[in-house]
């Protein structure tokens, strides 16, 4: 049954994304062809539309998370969704997974045309040597080997946490705004609840950072976790960047907690109008 939920959720949400993803694909193909045929005019003409398409792809995916959840659970279509013989948590998890899928696809679709622009620029500058120098300089500022793998893993995990937190906050905000207490002005209360969650998560992050400031530190030699502050680290290493891990841990915990709460409300407190 869970597989069927995923299948139908994917089918239902594909219509939000098909047009904009097609536009992104066309842009990627055009940029790819212009690179092959060295058509520099296309590059200069395409820059602005590409930026617009990239933003549009991401905005569409983020807005569709809200729209789809509200429409299929709390509007008329909720009569169809919530009378299915499936558990609420299965329904919720299928929506979370498919939302994840589309957001990741949209990030890839937004980035892809720009990767061809970078190749264009490299070709235009006749910069094989220049590129090697740039890459060498870049490499001097970053650790290599296992540490690079660690950095990539860190950024992948934190990106996934950011997506999870967005989806979790949205689902909880929409659900709470459609309970009896707040249902008179669900859109307004949905926005207020979303903002309140961000505020509370921020405050908890600041508090934990005061008590136990955990960072992910990237230096020119390595990458590691540390409880030391930037000043102290700076005396010992050439610090490239420092990322607060507290915020990601708090966000991840908040997202999971809010999703569980959303499932509980859907299971026990729902009142479809």
């Amino acid at each position, binding site marked *: 049954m869970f597989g069927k939920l995923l299948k139908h959720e994917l089918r239902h949400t594909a219509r939000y994304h098909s047009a904009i993803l097609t536009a992104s694909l066309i842009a990627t193909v055009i940029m790819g062809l212009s690179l092959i045929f060295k058509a520099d005019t296309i590059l200069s003409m395409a820059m602005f539309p590409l930026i617009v398409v990239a933003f549009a792809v991401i905005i569409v995916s983020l807005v569709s998370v809200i729209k789809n959840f509200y429409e299929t659970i709390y509007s*008329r279509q909720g*009569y169809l969704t919530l009378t299915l*013989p499936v558990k609420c948590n299965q329904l919720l998890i299928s929506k979370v997974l498919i939302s994840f899928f589309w957001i990741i696809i949209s990030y890839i679709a937004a980035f892809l045309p720009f990767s061809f622009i970078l190749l264009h620029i490299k070709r235009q500058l006749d910069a094989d040597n220049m590129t090697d120098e740039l890459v060498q300089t870049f490499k001097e500022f970053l650790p290599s080997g296992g540490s690079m793998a660690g950095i990539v893993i860190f950024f992948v995990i934190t990106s996934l946490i950011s997506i999870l937190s967005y989806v979790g906050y949205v689902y909880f905000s929409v659900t709470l705004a459609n309970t009896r207490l707040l249902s008179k002005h669900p859109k307004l209360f949905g926005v207020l609840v979303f903002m309140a969650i961000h505020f509370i998560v921020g405050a908890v992050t600041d508090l934990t950072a005061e008590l136990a400031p955990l960072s992910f530190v990237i230096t020119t030699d390595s990458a590691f976790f540390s409880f030391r502050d930037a000043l102290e680290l700076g005396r010992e290493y050439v610090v490239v960047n420092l990322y607060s891990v507290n915020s990601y841990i708090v966000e991840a915990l908040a997202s999971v907690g809010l999703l569980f709460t959303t499932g509980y409300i859907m299971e026990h407190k729902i*009142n479809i109008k």
Partner: protein
Amino acid sequence: MPDIITLASLKKSYGSNTVLEDINLRIPEGAIVGLLGPNGCGKTTLLKILAGLIKDYSGTVKINNNEIGVETKEIVAFLPDASYLPQWMTPLDAIGYFSDFYKDFDKEKALKMVTDFSLNPKQKLKTMSKGQQEKLCLILILSRNARLYLLDEPLGGLDPSSRAAILDMIMKNYAKDSTVLISTHLINDVEKIFNRVLMISHGKLVVDSHVNELRSHGKSVQDVFLEVFPYVW
């Protein structure tokens, strides 16, 4: 016959507004029940509770001896008062959807009914009329071999000949030995099919009677309705 629906001390309020109060009810299998009352009396709320769309109530609600949940949704077919299907779907999409989720769904029956009722199986719902969409919703429900059918105002907004056709469709296609609970305020049209009537007034169950019993006193369901709700206009 065993009871398919059991309600005990069911109460539902929206803030200070009590919509259903102290409803106690047992409905056996195989009954065709009319749920009658004026607009706003609580009929739809009761049906939505039985369908699992409202969870925030007090009291006990059981279908086939199970609390409302996955097991009850497997055997309950709910038809709301207006179309609830996504507008991008076609009848074929909707049939595929129901076929995937409901073990009791008869796909062949649904496809035949779509043809019999002159619906284009590949036409998107957003290009169909309201009546066509509601017809499709009814086809989907009646293509299920459910143990309990909950029909909320299936005749609302229809002309007399359409109402007769819909009633005919319901009586010919629902799974026999199942229980049917129809909410309506168009009593004249449906009276002849009921074997039991429930009347709700201000959230309370004021009449719970077998139709034969009413008729043995020389009264029609319509007569009793007008006695109970003389103020309705």
